[in-house]
């Protein structure tokens, strides 16, 4: 299967020419992004090389504890990054950790339980990464939307509270919009699957020589998986997150919106 994969160090060096294209554009158009491009490329090469060797070791060792450790590291890392996107929302890391943990465990557990994937490192580790990164992006969008809509609708929330509404009733529209914003990119990408893009998992399998008809089955499974996980992650992070906009006296924490 791997006979078709012909990427070598030499071809990678030639491929680096494509980075030069981006650098030339950045230079000519005075975009001021060349430093970022170079740092990004260097980080990608170093990070992926390290991960490649680690995965090689984990897969070769085939130890359940080591697989679990990879799972935990991925989940914590994703939560850390999602938390940073909370932009000042208190307990954003803790809430993201809970949302990503539940979303990943439920989805991954279902896949293993139904026999869609096996509990072996070469399947668990990449699938965990796919799930956790998608929830991370979804939570980031949820937080951003929540901060923005609480700011935009501050007056409306205050009026609802003044009428005696509980914090959930005062925020329910914001909650719904935020959950939707977290799930929307996944739903949008599902609609164009196969028409616009051949997603990563499917492309990878086809690259490796797997029958495309078999590859789509995996992609359909991934689609279900991402829908469930972004849904779970969005709902948990939003329901935990909106409370942070209020204090103990059920007053809107206007400081957070400034």
């Amino acid at each position: 299967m791997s006979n078709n994969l012909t990427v070598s160090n030499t071809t990678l060096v030639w491929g680096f020419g494509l980075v030069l294209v981006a650098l030339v554009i950045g230079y000519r158009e005075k975009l001021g992004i060349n430093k970022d491009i170079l740092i990004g490329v260097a980080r990608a090469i170093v990070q992926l090389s390290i991960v490649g060797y680690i995965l090689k070791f984990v897969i070769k060792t085939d130890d359940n504890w080591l697989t679990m450790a990879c799972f935990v590291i991925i989940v914590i890392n994703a939560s850390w990054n999602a938390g940073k996107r909370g932009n000042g929302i208190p307990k954003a890391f803790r809430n993201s950790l809970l949302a990503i943990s539940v979303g990943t465990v439920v989805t991954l557990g279902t896949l293993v339980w139904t026999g869609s994937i096996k509990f072996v490192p070469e399947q668990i580790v990449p699938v965990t990464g796919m799930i956790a990164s998608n929830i991370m992006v979804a939570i980031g969008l949820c937080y951003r939307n929540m901060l923005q809509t609480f700011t935009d609708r501050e007056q409306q929330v205050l009026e609802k509270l003044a009428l005696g509404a509980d914090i959930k009733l005062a925020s329910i529209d914001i909650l719904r919009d935020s959950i939707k914003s977290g799930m929307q990119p996944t739903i949008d990408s599902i609609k164009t699957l196969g028409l616009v893009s051949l997603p990563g998992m499917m492309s990878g399998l086809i690259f490796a020589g797997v029958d495309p008809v078999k590859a789509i089955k995996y992609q359909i499974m991934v689609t279900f998986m991402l829908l469930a996980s972004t849904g779970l992650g969005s709902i948990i992070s939003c329901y935990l997150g909106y409370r942070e906009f209020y204090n103990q006296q059920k007053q809107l924490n206007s400081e957070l919106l400034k």
Partner: protein
Amino acid sequence: MKNILEIKDLFYKVKDKEILKNINLEIEAGQYITFIGPSGSGKSTLMRIIASMITATSGEIIFDGKSLSSYDPTTYRQRVSYAFQQPTLFGKTVKDNLEFPFLVRGEEFDSKKTISALEMVNLDESYIDKSVNDISGGEKQRIALLRNLLFRPEILITDEVTTGLDTENKEIVHKMLTRFNEEENMTVLRVTHDESEIENSAKKITIKDGEIV
């Protein structure tokens, strides 16, 4: 007459700035009090503290014999209702707004009660299904006030609610509040800069530089 509200040694600070200083007040049930004073003197802040929208830095508020802090904030705000100067209407229709007080109390929407409430502010039944974008500023304020008044609060706080309204709308709002105050013994705390409203007030309290003068 018993005191429905007592404010004792109340201070409110933002960072190092004292917005309210040593406020002491006793308000009897059924009083209609007008709070006056220059802009930025602390009137609205005091009203927001009484409405439990913000919390005083120190001091105590006693409502109906019990400290404000002993109430669940949502229950308290249903009994001490705060009306904003420039309210926003929720949702798409007038009904979405008038339904809200029922939703807050977990009750079914009562259209009969709502229609008779609309009539009190000179609006007829047809308004229920109107879009919030199709009503005038005065009608908007009257509908917003009905949200506060559909279930009678014991204290209604109006924070410059007639600012920007024409004479006719001001009169409608004034009549409605006077009626609830006189016939149903509802306590009204009103903040206003309107000369005629100040002139016609039986009881006035002036706040200047965060203090009652």
